[in-house]
């Protein structure tokens, strides 16, 4: 039985819909869906709504336009360095990642465009990944941008990648097309266009919903299968560090060179 898509809420950064018991979170707009405090607040509000909805059986996260997400909003960070920008954005970004890891329902990412750095991490934190064939790439850009990888974020990456893929992703900052990502087992399927990618994700989600799993069981098993990720995120053992031209940023301190 095909359910109708029900529109639930629209925020500036995202939209929440529901098809049967599958909730669909779409990062909206034609831009590159960067993560800054306003957009992260919107996303987290949507996620909390899903978590609190008693009928929610699965979550599909997807995007409009050519970008899933290009990660943290570096412009916002540079502008707000003197105002604890990194603390604020880190709270919200890592809060989103650990919220996703704790969600008691299956999560599926329908990646219909580029997913880089923080955007790639958001995709990785989902249980299943489907991607559109085409120009979009998965790219962990930190190495290219002189950013250190804190243990909180490395734990997310390591949990979902095999040793060979890990080297290619993190130590080569390789740009993976959808087919390559499939070959390296980073994603579960490749589809011809965005509509097919999203539809497949929803159909898979419906199959998982039909299994009737209990939320606490599911969350507990995810934490068991991918241990220490939530703990490492919440432990915050390393500051965010950037080596940029002329200066370094370590946590909230800026060092001129």
């Amino acid at each position, binding site marked *: 039985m095909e359910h109708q898509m029900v529109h639930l809420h629209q925020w500036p950064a995202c939209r929440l819909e529901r098809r049967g018991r599958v909730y669909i979170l779409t990062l909206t707009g034609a831009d590159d869906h960067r993560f800054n405090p306003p957009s992260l607040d919107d996303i987290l509000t949507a996620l909390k709504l899903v978590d609190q909805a008693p009928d929610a059986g699965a979550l599909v996260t997807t995007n409009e336009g050519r970008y899933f997400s290009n990660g943290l909003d570096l412009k916002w960070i540079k502008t707000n360095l003197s105002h604890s920008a990194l603390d604020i954005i880190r709270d919200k970004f890592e809060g989103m990642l650990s919220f996703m890891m704790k969600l008691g329902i*299956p999560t599926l990412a329908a990646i219909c465009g580029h997913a880089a750095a923080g955007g790639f991490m958001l995709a990785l934190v989902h*249980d*299943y990944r489907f991607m559109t064939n085409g120009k979009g790439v998965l790219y962990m850009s930190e190495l290219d941008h002189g950013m250190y990888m804190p243990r909180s974020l490395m734990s997310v990456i390591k*949990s*979902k*990648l*095999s040793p060979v893929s890990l080297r290619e992703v993190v130590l080569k900052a390789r740009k993976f097309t959808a087919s390559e990502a499939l070959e390296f*087992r980073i994603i*579960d399927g490749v589809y011809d266009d965005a509509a097919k990618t999203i539809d497949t994700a929803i159909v898979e989600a419906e199959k*998982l919903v039909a*299994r009737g*799993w*209990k939320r606490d*069981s*599911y969350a*507990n*098993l*995810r934490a*068991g*299968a*991918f*241990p220490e990720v939530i703990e490492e995120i919440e432990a915050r053992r390393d500051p965010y560090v950037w080596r940029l031209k002329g200066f370094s940023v370590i946590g909230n301190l800026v060092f001129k060179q």
Partner: protein
Amino acid sequence: MCTLEKRGHVFVLTLTGDGEHRLNPTLIDAIQDALRRVRADPTPGSALVTTAKGKFFSNGFDLNWAKAGGSASQERVHQMSSKFEQIVADLMSLPMPTVAAVTGHASAAGCMLALSHDYVYMRKDRGFLYMSELDIGLPFPDYFMAMLRSKIAAPRARRDVVLRAAKIKAEEAVEMGIIDEAHSSPGETVEAAMRRAEELAGRKWDGEVYASIRKATFSEISGVLGLVKKLDIASRL
């Protein structure tokens, strides 16, 4: 319940009868007894093959027996889980190579039994590996999860086994890196397992060294089972 025989250099432990080989205290005790006899044999250069008769390798704990306990049903599940943990510990510390010839369905604790072996061969014509806990709404004992993390390294494979409660047939299991080989029939599976076991036994490895290396290789599950002593290396000098 189960038989133990030696063919050449290979011990063969067989779960007998056509039933589901449910791991109730009686069967678990029988297996533990057989493993004790394996250890007691001083002949170096041996190996173990574990297999089963009928349609099932093992369908896991005897939940009917647990339910029959009424108010004590939780306690009965706990009892089976504790006893079975001993089997897993025995297998993970057995001083010889071990091969599981999975000749039928292996679910939950039955799947754990297979994965507790160094090599897993399985028939491809019928039967599947299946961690059913999510479907039944039961939690995993800690040592189950530690075993899965130790033996199923690939994230997507682990996700499919644990978070999708997938029923995985032999050929898919080989592709996912969960088992070693898929064979056309139960007879061929056992034969291939025996050949492997003979080959491994022929390497004439020191059993204690083998066990020590196995524990170091799968350090997480070994730790959870209490098998790792800090002075392991020093005590051999």
